[in-house]
């Protein structure tokens, strides 16, 4: 298989598939709710969706040492899974059922955040794979220490891409959090819960 095709299959395709699956599943679930006249279910899915997304932030807190327990690598897997599932529920909750600009902005911010998260996952996986490949190559060649350091330095630059991505991911998350919070406060303020 040519290199470009292999790269596309191994790195780009899972990224696109994850995003496409999110959109397709959200549309399918929303369609089902409409078909069976269960729109009220969608109205409440915002709550579990939000809770899942809040749960997913355990990784972010751990990484910034705001919490001390939990294995970062495992928490990262949970972060990816819970954020993806929570976004799915919020997307079904949002459907196309609202007029308010604030709600739309919150959903768009969430989608950009998911896209950003998947990009980060893609960059991190790629960096990890390349580092591993480089180490094995170097070991096989029996490179002297100085040269090995040199190689690792260049490889670490791919991790810099992850660092740079994080600079973007956090403000996007902040935008989403503020917009979602404004939407939630508005709902609590005006909705008749009784």
């Amino acid at each position, binding site marked *: 298989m040519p290199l470009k095709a292999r790269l596309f299959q191994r790195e780009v395709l899972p990224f696109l598939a994850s995003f496409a699956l999110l959109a397709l599943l959200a549309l399918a679930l929303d369609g089902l709710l409409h078909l069976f006249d269960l729109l009220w279910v969608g109205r409440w899915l915002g709550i579990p969706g939000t809770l899942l997304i809040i749960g997913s932030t355990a990784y972010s807190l751990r990484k910034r040492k705001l919490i001390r327990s939990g294995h970062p690598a495992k928490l990262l897997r949970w972060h990816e899974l819970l954020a993806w599932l929570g976004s799915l529920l919020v997307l079904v909750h949002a459907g196309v059922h609202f007029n308010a600009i604030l709600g739309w902005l919150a959903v768009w911010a969430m989608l950009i955040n998911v896209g950003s998260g998947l990009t980060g996952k893609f960059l991190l996986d790629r960096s990890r794979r390349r580092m591993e490949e480089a180490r094995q190559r170097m070991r096989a060649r029996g490179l002297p220490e100085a040269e090995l350091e040199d190689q690792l330095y260049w490889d670490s630059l791919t991790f810099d891409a992850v660092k740079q991505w994080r600079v973007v991911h956090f403000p996007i998350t*902040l935008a989403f959090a503020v917009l979602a919070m404004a939407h939630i406060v508005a709902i609590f303020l005006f909705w*008749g819960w*009784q």
Partner: protein
Amino acid sequence: MKQRPPILWIVVALNLLVLVALAFAYPHLMISPGPLVRGHEELATDCFACHAAWRGASTQRCTECHAVADVGLKTTKGVPIPTRAVKVSFHQELIERDCIACHSDHQGPKLTRRSRKPFSHALLKVTVKEQCSTCHAAPKDTLHRNLTAQCSQCHGDKAWKPATFDHDKYFVLDRDHQAPCDTCHRNNDYGRYTCYGCHEHSEAKVRAEHLEEGIRDFQDCVECHRDPRAEPEKGRGQDRGGRERD
């Protein structure tokens, strides 16, 4: 040296502040789930005119302007409302006062409209529910003008049309019997019928044919001839009460 916040952060924070400020300045665009109904348009930017903070819109808020005794009779400014075909004043006769159960003053997107609860006759007090004429004027067409039967014999309480009356239960209207109602039910009296309204069934001819078979009681035709395509059941036609005929 203290690290300065990156420009990206400042831009994002400023944008978010502007958006939150816009939610306060233009709540009808930023927060409202849809434009308000025509009568409430002037309240579009005053959410708390109807919504109590953290508790939502309440019946108590509605009735501060819309006195229950005046609903359908007078506007909130005391101007009398002309009577309509269906009296809106049924609001005084509801078993429960829960305005929000039926009225959502925000006109949501098309897809959510069907989730609104429509009016249900089950919400009316029994005494009013059983007397259709307290709200509905009787139709003045020839079909209904002199009718004395209960509306519920032919109409359900979900919709006027289609009528639920099943003529086939009484007599099957096959292709030879697609006649105007008045052919059989003279003078719009649906409590009676006659089969002598058409040339096929002249009284003299029917009498002669039945007497020839030894049937003397042939006044209530549909007791035996419920389905014009089927033969009358043997042994019937004797000893009946049945309906009156013209």
